[in-house]
């Protein structure tokens, strides 16, 4: 059965479409799949009234040109799109990517404390992190920063009691039922397990400043410190598309 959805005006120039119960904080793969299906559908159609789209965990913010269609007309139009998408849950628009992570002691700031909190060995934590099939539920917080759903529930734990003032750029971290990667150095309260050498945000790359896109599927692969340093110096040779995933898109 499909979840209910609801329309909410976000002023006179944007509409927020929310799936499921707004008060429900639980992350919901189905809600996000429906967000992504509509996001990818509208992006493909690129209607003239569309100004911007912000997909998030369980909602899609649609910026529109109100001189071309009213709020009521947009709601009707989106209802039609949702009906047409129907049972089709989308999800085939996302790429399958494999990201390298160095879990070196120097980078894995919270590996020991996560292992202790979950009663696991550090090796088991890393194995579960690499076995998790993540999906980019949204990008936000800063340019290129992904919120990754799909963390192995065995690794779920609240944020750090005291956030760090400085989390280094590239840090790969977890909290609650999610994963994240910090594109730039910033404050942060997530548990850091390793570091990714690839630039997640590169403003000099006009065509694609962000490595990841909403709807992408991600898995992490451990690399050595030497490989990390080499990729940090020159990431261009790394094949980010996942050769092991059957559904890899171009």
């Amino acid at each position, binding site marked *: 059965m499909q979840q209910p959805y609801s329309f909410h005006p976000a002023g*006179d*120039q*944007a509409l*927020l479409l929310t799936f499921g119960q707004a008060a429900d904080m639980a992350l919901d793969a189905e809600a996000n799949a429906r967000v992504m299906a509509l996001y990818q559908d509208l992006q493909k159609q690129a209607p003239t009234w569309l100004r911007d789209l912000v997909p998030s965990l369980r909602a899609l913010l649609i910026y529109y040109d109100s001189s071309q269609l009213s*709020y009521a007309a947009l709601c009707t139009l989106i209802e039609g799109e949702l009906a047409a998408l129907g049972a089709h849950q989308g999800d085939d628009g996302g790429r399958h990517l494999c990201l390298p992570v160095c879990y070196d002691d120097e980078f894995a700031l919270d590996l020991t404390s996560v292992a202790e909190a979950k009663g696991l060995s550090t090796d088991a934590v890393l194995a579960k992190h690499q076995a998790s099939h993540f999906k980019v539920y949204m990008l936000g917080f800063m*340019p*290129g920063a992904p919120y990754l759903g799909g963390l192995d529930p065995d690794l779920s734990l609240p944020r750090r009691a005291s956030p760090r003032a400085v989390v280094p750029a590239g840090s790969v971290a977890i909290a609650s039922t999610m994963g994240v990667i910090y594109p730039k150095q910033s404050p942060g309260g997530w548990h850091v397990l390793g570091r990714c050498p690839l630039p997640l945000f590169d403003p000099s790359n006009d065509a694609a*400043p962000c490595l990841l896109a909403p709807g992408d599927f991600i898995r992490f692969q451990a690399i050595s410190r030497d490989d990390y340093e080499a990729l940090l110096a020159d990431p261009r040779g790394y094949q980010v598309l996942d050769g092991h995933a059957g559904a890899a898109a171009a």
Partner: protein
Amino acid sequence: MIEIIEPGPLTSIQDRGRWGHQAQGIGPSGVMDTRLAQIANALVGAPLSQAVIEFWGMGPSLRALDHPVTLAVAGQAQPSSGHAAFQTLTLKPRETLQIGPLRGHAIGYLAFAEPLDAPVWLGSQATHIRAGLGGHKGRLLAAGDRLALRPAGEQGRPLRYIEPDRALLVNDKPIRLVAGPQDQDFDPAALETLVSQPYQLTSLCDRMGYRLEGPALQHKVSADIASDGIAMGSVQVPANGQPIILLAERQTTGGYTKIATVVSCDLPRFVQSLPGTRLRFSWVSVEEAQAAVLAETQALDRLCADLPLRLDMSNTSLLSANLISGVVSGT
């Protein structure tokens, strides 16, 4: 080419914003007061999408270098600084323009007849100051910065002016709000409080957002939601119940409840308010908001298309008329 002599505290290159990239976490940024920026461009005969220099509180001082520069200042100057605002001006090479402090409102604009030659990144020249992106080297303008203007197409632009009262919307009518997107997460009394009590603008105002102070707005259960997109003018309320109105440099997404959104044609009046101002709000439906926006857009387009010509005086006669004394001077 122009050179910035003194930049002022918060001066940056902006345009209508960088749209279409919020799904990647890249916010639109752009001018805070779209209305005043449009008027500034109209004064120099430029399209409304052309990049302008936005300044806060204190305007920059700048110098024309190699060529004459046709420009206009949209901002109410202090009487002591003379008055070059709200009209088309031409700086001769080596002449300087000192804009000085603004009076009675927060933000001013400087528009140029010839487009600023700053890099276009993802379709826009707007500076996102927090992210260090766009504009001139991704930052505020600084003393010594030189900005190129693309070559003049035509000489002798018509000189125009506008009365300050028509350019700046100053009145104490309530700022109109559309409820949502998370109004249902608030105690019903909060929706009544927001429009029946005044809220004072604090000094914590910048391009990201303005913080207000007033009776606390109570949530039903929690101030937190699963993060979602934030529209321009969103009235976000964290757990302390004090509203923050999110503006041009807002984050693309956030995890606090948003009780309402400011109607877009009331944003110019809101963002021009100074810290300490006691603001009143009122509710309108989204249909009423869209009708008001359409009417305002048409009225502004008519105003900009029909700016009166200034008397055809040379700068010399302007100086003698004491219109721009102390503002334009040769060096």
